């Protein structure tokens, strides 16, 4: 394998990881933009999405549906995982966050953390502590550019995540609910005065964010071929780093941050010892927070918010 193909291969890897981080980071950014709370349970929602995907896939494989209706299978798997996790997101919001909207921030954060611990242990109890194999349906077929092997699965995942991001952007910018979301994020009191149903807007945000995370979970499962109950933790921290890097509250920022974090991680694994790659993400996160807490595309963050 020569240099050019090596670069292309790494580029594809970076693009894939970047899309995953972006999708998860979008959930953080949206929720933070609206209620200024880090949804600690987001990483667990991502894992829950992956597990729902595995369950649906296994069920469909059992009845031989996958071979006959491949496209429909993909739609079903992603659709059901996203729908279920959207409901889960709303449930968490109702149980743990809504009663604390007026309470101190410490209380809200601790409640969020409690939900995260609860969900992660719930998944451990039901799905086991070991790695679960994901049914391999994407296959190894693909094409080559300059000896660099690119599977259709990789292309599919990258394209799907791009589609989701564009759809989200269109929704937030053009739809009525999206406008309500942006208004709520800017000034909740004013939005309420203008007749926007704040509760409904927050609920919708808690559906869309986790649904995107669930899609990322299914993608990770399909791509790496296995999932684990605690994999959400590391993805959560990285996606959070991405959201901060791009500027928390900013949707294009989350995508940009995700791509940068993905790129850095792939570069690091390619040339330096990979067991230290997680450490670099944390260091990047801390450096960004220290030197530019508003991120690349974020507006100026006031002291009180930080």
């Amino acid at each position: 394998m020569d240099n050019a193909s090596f670069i292309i291969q790494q580029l594809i890897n970076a693009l894939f990881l970047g899309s995953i981080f972006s999708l998860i980071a979008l959930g953080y950014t949206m929720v933070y933009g609206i209620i200024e709370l880090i949804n600690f349970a987001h990483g667990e929602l991502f894992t829950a999405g992956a597990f729902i995907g595995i369950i649906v896939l296994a069920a469909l494989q059992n009845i031989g549906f996958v071979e006959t209706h491949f496209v429909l299978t993909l739609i079903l798997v992603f659709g059901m995982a996203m729908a279920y996790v959207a409901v889960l997101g709303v449930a968490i919001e109702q149980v743990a966050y809504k009663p604390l909207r007026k309470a101190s921030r410490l209380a809200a954060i601790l409640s969020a953390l409690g939900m995260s611990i609860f969900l992660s242990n719930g998944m451990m109890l039901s799905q086991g502590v070991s790695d679960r194999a994901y049914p391999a349906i994407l296959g190894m077929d693909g094409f080559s550019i300059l000896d660099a092997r690119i599977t259709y699965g990789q292309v599919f995942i990258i394209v799907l995540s791009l589609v989701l991001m564009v759809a989200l952007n269109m929704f937030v910018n053009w739809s009525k609910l999206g406008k309500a979301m942006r208004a709520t994020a800017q000034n909740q009191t004013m939005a309420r005065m203008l007749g926007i149903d704040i509760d409904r807007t927050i609920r919708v945000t808690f559906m869309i964010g986790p649904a995107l995370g669930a899609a990322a979970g299914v993608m990770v499962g399909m791509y790496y071929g296995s999932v684990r109950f605690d994999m959400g933790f590391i993805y959560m921290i990285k996606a959070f780093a991405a959201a901060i890097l791009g500027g928390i509250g900013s949707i294009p920022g989350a995508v940009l941050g995700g791509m940068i974090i993905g790129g850095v991680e792939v570069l690091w694994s390619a040339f330096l010892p990979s067991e230290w790659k997680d450490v670099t993400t944390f260091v990047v996160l801390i450096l960004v927070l220290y030197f530019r807490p508003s991120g690349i595309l974020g507006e100026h963050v006031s002291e009180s918010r930080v």
Partner: protein
Amino acid sequence: MAKSDFKTFIVYALFLGILILPMVGFPGTRFEASRALTIWGGVVGILALWLANKTVRRSDMYRRTATRFEPIKNNILRRFSKLPIRYYILVLLIGVAAYPLVANNYMIDVGITCLIYIVLGLGLNIVVGLAGLLDLGYIAFYAVGAYSYSLLNLHFGISFWLSLPIGMVIGAIFGCIIGYPTLRMRGDYLAIVTMGFGEIIRLVLNNWDKLTKGPNGLLGMAKPTVVYPALTDGGLSWVVYSLKSLHALYYLMFIIAVLTVIGVRRLDNSRIGRAWVAIREDEVAAELSGVPTTWLKLLAYAMGAAFASVVGAFFAAKLSYTNPNFFIFMESCIVLCIVVLGGVGSIPGIILAGIILIAVPEVFRELQDYRMLAFGLAMAAMMVLRPEGLIPASRRKRELHETGQSTPEDLKDGA
């Protein structure tokens, strides 16, 4: 039964049901709906108790009975509160000190674990409860303590007692390293960054094979020893006694715990403690009133870290073994749970929560699996229903239930 309460009950029961649904295995996996249903049943049962409690308290009969018993209750309460608090503390101390005499080895071990977590909780309480800085990577300082003792002992043969102050200083330095970049942050950002720091320390311990032997851990540290003079055949001589037995280790930990309680209590009422509370309440106002916020925040991290470091050294000495997997993020969560459930800022609350959270799951071994599940739910429920904790700190309780008017009790406390 008030209609709104009933509605809340139904909504919560439904949403908790949805939350518990991921625990149901589906076709192709393990089908264990019964387990999820049992958990859901338990949760709904607790909710129903809450509803019943509220309903009963609303009813006329309860009110009538309550007013009749009010004088009697007050009478009893007055009798008990007349006794100075030091008598209760004395009884508690004697109880804890006598515990190993009646307990078997396993129970003593559980007792030591309890004491370890209580001290960790008290240390974290300085950071979270007093200074109001949420630290999700607290267990890292515990690791720093454990590894500094292990390395000092294995490479330089430094004894436990000498390495305690050294470990405290190292822990405090690490506290400042974490504290310094996060000085400007509060709330969510701080939580994530401290979590990241905690993971960095664990990953470094795990990956730095040459120094820490990686995931295999370090083995063979010396137990703490005590030297005392004794009369032997040759006259007066020094006898070296190694604290190997569980009893000896228990008492050592007991002394550490008592010293910690005294230290934290004195800190709480000191000038520094009050300055921390001022920072927690309003940093800008505190700064304007002349409180050196930067130094005090660093000090809070350093102090908290120093306590954790001492317990870490004890932990490593007790097992003569340490490895990075003792210091995972979940451990930080357990310590935080103890602080939160007990009541942020409340020393008796943390002691009680430490006993409940560590001892109860050990005694009911079959509940071990569900331990963290219950912790997580309890943490969220506590924040929603009773944010001041099991035994609220008097200062904190007033803050969380501000009524705008002061009750006689408040006035007595000098609020």
